[in-house]
């Protein structure tokens, strides 16, 4: 009983936080509550949202991927290179970049599943490997690409940015996978107890690799969107991107120890992080504070999760 109530609190918390944040910013920041600004929030955070959706799966698995920022940099470079020098149609570029991302992700997944390695160590290693790769590709010259396709950049239908709709669609699809597909159910099972999942005949290694591959593919999509919006790749493109993604998922109530979490929670987490970053910019606080705020929120989210868990562990006799 206590557990059920706890679950509800956990699920509601993010929306209460988000509402409080919206109200506070609306009062404190005059430019906040305008269609233009809110549209910007969505355009700027669509990539974050898409990657966070897939990261939710990886964290429910009981894993994590801290290399998504570096991957984003490499894939953004690939996007720019394909469009500027290869003169390819958008769809082909999108296909190649997403496929490459899936490949990179499945490499991460394979190291975790087959190399029997803790995900954070494996992907920390890969963070630096991909960063080096990007550095080599970049070669001292920033890569500029022409505005690729407006609909993946800042284009809006009325006041609604197209990328926002894309992000929503990704969330809808993944939420349905989480609930209504074998793959999604298996992810939860693996995150609950790898051994028990194996006992139930679930192909644990394939699911791990699959979830990482999905994450990589969506990083690819985010990379194309980033290029469509920003149009330039530098050596540090994508740096610290992973922090926002992981923060959004954890603040959204997905448990760092795996087995529990939801796409809807992550959506709330993404909005919270995006609005927070926007608020920091609007209020004139140096953007350097972004990292401080996100780091602190990650710690608060995980800390309260752990403390709640411990309390409920005492209250519910096994």
């Amino acid at each position, binding site marked *: 009983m206590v557990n059920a109530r706890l679950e509800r609190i956990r699920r509601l918390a993010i929306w209460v936080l988000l509402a409080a944040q919206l109200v506070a910013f609306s009062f404190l920041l005059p430019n906040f509550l305008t269609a233009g600004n809110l549209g910007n929030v969505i355009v700027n955070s669509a990539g974050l949202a898409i990657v966070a959706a897939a990261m939710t799966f990886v964290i429910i698995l009981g894993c*994590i991927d*801290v290399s998504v920022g570096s991957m984003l940099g490499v894939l953004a470079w690939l996007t720019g290179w394909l469009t500027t020098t290869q003169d390819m149609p958008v769809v082909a570029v999108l296909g190649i970049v997403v496929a490459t991302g899936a490949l990179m992700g499945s490499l991460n997944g394979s*190291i975790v599943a087959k*190399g*029997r*390695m*803790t995900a*954070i*160590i*494996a992907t*920390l*290693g*890969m*963070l*630096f*490997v991909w*960063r*080096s*790769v990007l*550095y*080599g590709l970049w070669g001292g010259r920033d890569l500029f690409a022409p505005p690729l396709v407006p609909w993946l950049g800042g284009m809006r239908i009325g006041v609604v940015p197209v990328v926002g709709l894309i992000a929503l669609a990704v969330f809808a699809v993944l939420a349905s996978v989480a609930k209504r597909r074998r793959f999604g159910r298996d992810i939860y099972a693996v995150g609950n107890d*790898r051994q028990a999942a194996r006992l139930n005949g679930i192909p644990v290694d394939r699911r791990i690799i699959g979830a990482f591959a999905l994450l990589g593919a969506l990083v690819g999509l985010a990379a194309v969107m980033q290029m469509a919006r920003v149009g330039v790749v530098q*050596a540090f493109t994508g740096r*610290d991107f992973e*922090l926002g993604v*992981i923060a959004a998922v*954890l603040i959204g109530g997905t448990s*760092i*120890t795996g087995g529990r979490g939801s796409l809807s929670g992550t959506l709330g987490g993404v909005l919270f992080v995006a609005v927070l970053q926007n608020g920091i910019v609007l209020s004139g606080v*140096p953007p*350097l*504070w*972004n*990292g*401080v705020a*996100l*780091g*602190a929120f*990650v*710690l608060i989210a*995980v*800390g309260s999760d*752990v*403390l709640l868990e*411990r309390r409920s562990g005492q209250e519910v006799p096994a």
Partner: protein
Amino acid sequence: MTSLSVSARPILTDRRTMLALLLVGMLVVFSQISPALVRPTLLVDITKFGVVVGLLALGQTLIILSGRGGIDLSVGSALSLSGIVMGLAVSAGVPVWPAAGIAIVTGVLLGAFNGFLIAVVGIPALIGTVGTLFLYGSLALVISGGRAISGYGEAGFPFIGQGTVLNVPAQLLLVLLPAYAVVGWLMARTRFGRTIYEVGNGDRAARLVGRSPRALRFWLFCISGGLAGLGAVVTNSWLQTARPAAGSGFELQAVTIAVLGGTHIFGGRGRLSGTFLALFVVILLNAGLQFNGVDQVWQSGVLGLLLIGSVVLNNLLSGEGDE
């Protein structure tokens, strides 16, 4: 009788044997492709590139050894932040030596905060220190405004980072070797060291013989933070500037060195001497790459591969995994 069986231990499978062979192998290879590097004076000189990261790897080894997924990914950021605090103190008129003390105390406090999150609140070390990695790193940027702070040319302070004693870098002789000697002695000869191994072997068993895993972990994070502070002092002395990103990426190197040295990522198994040897493998590798014109960013990529490779190797050798 007992000594006979000790010597019968499988020396060949010992990680330290492997690292020693690796070092010799690298020397042979480098003496072929870049003979200029493999000269005694230069080999001694390049050790200074490993002193700071060696300090961080020392703390890392202790924390990983203590088990339960212990790891400190915030050491690089703690180094940056301690260094900036020292820089600000000097700018504010504090004499340089007391400011160095402030840097070390700052490191200890940052470590204590990690220890609080992990040992008291109960956040998994991986995610807790990833959080503080960003927190401390961003704070270093924020309080310095993103700018480097320079000017410590007084009272012989630069000697720590730049001087030599009989051609040996002072930071190696006066900082790194004493630090390893002291901690190595603590590990081998005192109850403190034994406690690290006991807790790393299992919290419950250790508690039942009267140890306090929580207290131990808390202090180990403080030590790790303190060593990061000490690393900041060395860096500031060497470069004569405090840079807000001075330690970025060091956490990877520190973890890599500890794991490469044979410390099992699950705790309870590993030796400080392994970490020490692994440190020199990494120093020599980086120097070799540098010498052949390979850029620093590539070096960290190679290190990333080395980290993954060494963990997978550990798992394969011991026939078990992390999961």
